């Protein structure tokens, strides 16, 4: 199983090499993998029928509770089969569609990676592993949407898709972690099988919101749906595979997967129903009002995704059965339709259905397959789509909550979708022949085999619903419900309310279709108006907002003015320290006059006036000389308080400092007063505050001597053990010689820096 999941990645790695060997047969060659995977997954069906589920365990990151365990049950197997099955045809199709393309190998690398990720996603038992694959699908999707990357629009669309799904992905991560904390495990099977009442947990609401944010973005639910039509910038095989059949269903998968655990809370069901219904209607409406064939299909996908979400939300046995059927039906017809759309594009050179017509003569096989798929889309017998739609109506009528509203919405969507199906199947192929940019021929075999097989499968499933039902659908529905489910799939249920609704919607849909051309301007106007206030506008406003906030923040914070940086730094340093001193220790302003000699006062005074003079003088060298005086003052302090070594060092360093300053200064301009009086007073206030805090700190520290200094050790052992009588020097070269070692390296580094700064001039350099 691990191999099954990873094989896609492995194959991806060798694809470029393979491409060189197989040339134009690369699509067919690569398709062997998903084909065999399909067979492999199909071979698991008996096992699932017998045991309900199957667990295959592989270790990965046990420390974090992350493993590569794979959970195979009805639900995951349905998805796995869809992925590998449709994947097989997509690869074949892409081999033809992109034949001769410069980056065909790169395309297949990403495609295979995507397929593997998708398999990993639906098969993972571990929440985190699932998330890993989830994100991989987002990234591969990004790379595929932007496949025509030299086109600005493609890049923008790719970014939009990625940004929306990644945003959702991050909340999903939080949600999954919360779920894991609630369920005390990262293992789906453990969480699903535990009898903990998750909906009573404090994290429940947060977890549901986070997870749904993730699934809604991925599965293009309103209000996050806008990225999906834009994702049609991708080559058609990608749209067919990722953006209709598989990736967008990842969110659906996850909702279905978690339904048994999270479905008990009220929030879950109502959120899914509400957003699902809204998505369904919006998708259907937008599909009907679009002109680009891929947009039509994309919006109808959104409609389907909404429907699926809504069905999970309804959550009855019937609804979940409908869910599974609709899922399978949709994948079969939508994958096929997309491939057709690509073929049309490929042959005619346009995507706009208003610019096609009468193609049935040039492309008869294509036309036939399209009709078959469109019938399924419209939910007409004898295709599997019909069964799904009947179940949909039935389950909504049966819904414990908001039955009427949901049914009305579903019927409205169904009406529009009939129109959409007509648009797709009738508009291009029938009626007058319209001149297209390319003169159309029948699409190559590689591009037709997929749609054909998928449509025929839909037909077979429609005629013999017990085939998929017995094999998988029942157990899949059980997986979603959390308990075994009894299903009764049939093409003919007798005349009942769902059938009446179906017929009604069919008729109304046909009526709409025939008025489509006349409705188009009005629809267009509505869409344009909605675009200004819709969620997509929100997305653009958000992105713009980030840029504006970022620029503003950078202007304010990273303003380039060193003085302001320092000001903030000083304010933070001493504000924080001062506040902590106040709150954690308190302070007292003591000044003990008695313990100082008058001449020590004199030196203190000298230090102070030298410092102040250095700051206030307008003469640079006066300032430097004053620093010299300060140095003498500091040295005197050292000397008077028993630190001769320090005194000497200070004196020498002071002298050398003055020399260095003087050496440098005459290349520099004289002091000028650059700052305004306000700035000076502001800086003065901050500086005085900082100095005050320092004084308070020192005074506080002077009162405290928690422990004796460790120095007595040095004093005692300096002569007997280290053979030196100048204890300071012994510390420097023996007790703490490492400090000194570091220090001479500091000096050397300063020297090297100075050397290069002076000797290596930018203008002399050999530039790259």
């Amino acid at each position, binding site marked *: 199983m691990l191999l099954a999941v990873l094989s896609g990645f492995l194959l991806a790695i060798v694809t470029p090499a393979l491409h060189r060997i197989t040339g134009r047969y690369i699509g067919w060659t690569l398709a062997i993998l998903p084909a065999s995977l399909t067979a492999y997954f199909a071979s698991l069906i008996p096992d699932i029928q017998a045991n309900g589920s199957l667990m295959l365990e592989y270790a990965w990151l046990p420390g974090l509770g992350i493993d590569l365990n794979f959970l195979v049950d009805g639900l995951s197997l349905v998805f796995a089969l869809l992925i590998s099955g449709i994947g097989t045809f997509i690869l074949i199709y892409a081999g033809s569609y992109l034949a001769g393309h410069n980056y065909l190998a790169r395309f297949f690398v990403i495609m295979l990676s995507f397929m593997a990720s998708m398999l990993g996603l639906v098969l993972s038992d571990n929440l985190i592993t699932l998330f890993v694959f989830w994100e991989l699908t987002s990234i591969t999707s990004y790379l595929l949407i932007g496949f025509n990357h030299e086109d600005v629009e493609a890049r923008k669309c790719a970014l939009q898709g990625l940004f929306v799904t990644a945003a959702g992905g991050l909340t999903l991560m939080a949600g999954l972690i919360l779920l894991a904390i609630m369920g005390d495990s990262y293992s789906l099977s453990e969480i699903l099988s535990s009898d903990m009442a998750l909906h009573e947990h404090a994290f429940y609401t947060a977890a549901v919101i986070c997870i749904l944010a993730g699934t809604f973005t991925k599965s293009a639910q309103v209000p996050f749906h806008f990225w999906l039509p834009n994702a049609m910038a991708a080559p058609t095989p990608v749209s067919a595979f990722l953006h209709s059949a598989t990736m967008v269903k990842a969110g659906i998968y996850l909702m279905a997967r978690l339904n048994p655990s999270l479905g008990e809370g009220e929030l879950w069901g109502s959120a899914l129903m509400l957003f699902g219904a809204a998505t369904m209607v919006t998708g259907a409406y937008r599909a009907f009002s679009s002109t680009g064939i891929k947009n039509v299909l994309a919006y109808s996908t959104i409609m389907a995704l909404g429907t699926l979400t809504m069905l999970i939300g309804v959550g009855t046995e019937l609804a979940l059965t409908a869910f599974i059927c609709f899922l399978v039906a949709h994948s079969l017809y939508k994958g096929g339709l997309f491939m057709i759309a690509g073929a049309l594009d490929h042959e005619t050179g346009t995507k706009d259905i208003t610019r096609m017509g009468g193609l049935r003569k040039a492309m008869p096989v294509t036309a036939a397959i399209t009709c078959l798929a469109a019938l399924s889309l419209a939910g007409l017998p004898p295709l599997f789509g019909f069964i799904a739609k009947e179940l949909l109506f039935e389950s909504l009528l049966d819904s414990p909550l908001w039955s009427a509203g949901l049914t009305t919405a579903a019927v409205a969507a169904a009406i529009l979708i009939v129109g959409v199906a007509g648009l797709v199947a009738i508009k291009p192929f029938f009626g007058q022949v319209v001149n297209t940019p390319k003169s159309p021929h029948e699409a190559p075999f590689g591009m037709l085999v997929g749609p054909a097989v998928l449509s025929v499968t839909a037909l077979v499933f429609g005629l013999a619903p017990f085939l998929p039902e017995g094999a998988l659908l029942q157990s899949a529905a059980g997986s979603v419900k959390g308990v075994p489910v009894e299903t009764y799939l049939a093409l003919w249920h007798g005349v009942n309310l769902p059938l009446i609704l179906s017929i009604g919607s069919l008729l109304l849909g046909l009526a709409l279709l025939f008025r489509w051309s006349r409705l188009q301007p009005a629809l267009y106007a509505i869409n344009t108006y909605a675009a200004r206030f819709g969620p997509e506008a929100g997305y653009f406003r958000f992105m713009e907002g980030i840029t504006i906030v970022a620029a503003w923040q950078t202007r304010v914070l990273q303003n380039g003015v060193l003085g302001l940086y320092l000001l903030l730094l000083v304010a933070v340093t001493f504000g924080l320290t001062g506040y902590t001193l106040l709150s954690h220790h308190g302070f007292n302003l003591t000044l003990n006059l008695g313990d100082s000699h008058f001449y020590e006062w004199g030196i203190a005074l000298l230090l102070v006036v030298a410092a102040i003079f250095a700051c206030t003088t307008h003469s640079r060298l006066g300032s430097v000389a004053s620093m010299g005086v300060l140095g003498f003052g500091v040295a005197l302090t050292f000397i008077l308080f028993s630190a*001769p*070594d320090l005194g*000497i*060092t200070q004196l*020498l*360093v002071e*002298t*050398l400092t003055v*020399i*260095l300053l003087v*050496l*440098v200064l005459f*290349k520099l301009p004289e002091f000028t007063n650059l700052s305004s009086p306000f700035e000076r007073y502001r800086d003065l206030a901050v500086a005085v505050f900082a100095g005050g805090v320092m004084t308070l700190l020192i005074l506080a520290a002077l009162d405290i001597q928690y422990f004796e200094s460790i120095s007595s050790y040095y004093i005692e052992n300096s002569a007997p053990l*280290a*053979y*030196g*009588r*100048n204890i300071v*020097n*012994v510390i*420097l*070269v*023996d007790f703490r*010689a*490492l400090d*000194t*070692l570091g220090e*001479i*390296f500091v*000096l*050397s580094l*300063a*020297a*090297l820096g*100075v*050397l290069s700064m*002076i*000797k290596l001039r930018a203008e002399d350099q050999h530039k790259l």
Partner: protein
Amino acid sequence: MKSNTLILHTAALFIMPLQLMFSVFLLFRGHDEPGGGFIGGLVASGAFVLYAFAFGARKTRSILRVAPRDLLAAGLLFAIASTIPAFLTGQPMLTAHWWELPLPGDNYLKLSTPLIFDIGVYAAVLGTIMTFVMNLMESDE
């Protein structure tokens, strides 16, 4: 303005060796009395700075013989070398080793790794400051 040389030149020739000698004195005495490698190195730099002020950077380079940078490197290597004996005997880094070399009479020359270390410090400090000063001066000339 006019730059005089005579008096400063001559004085520098007398004062500089005095300072140099004093710096060596401070270096060797540092373990027992105020002084040591740093202070010694700083005084020695003072000596060469004086020389450089009197005679210019080029002549100072010629009496230094080695580039200040090489002096620096030598100092660093010296200081590091003083850690080697400890390594050879399997002791922690910078463990001091003392040797007494007998000299004529009743005298011993006390040699130790801390002394070697301090010599390294001396050379490194001298090298550093000469690098500063020489380069700054040369960039003016």
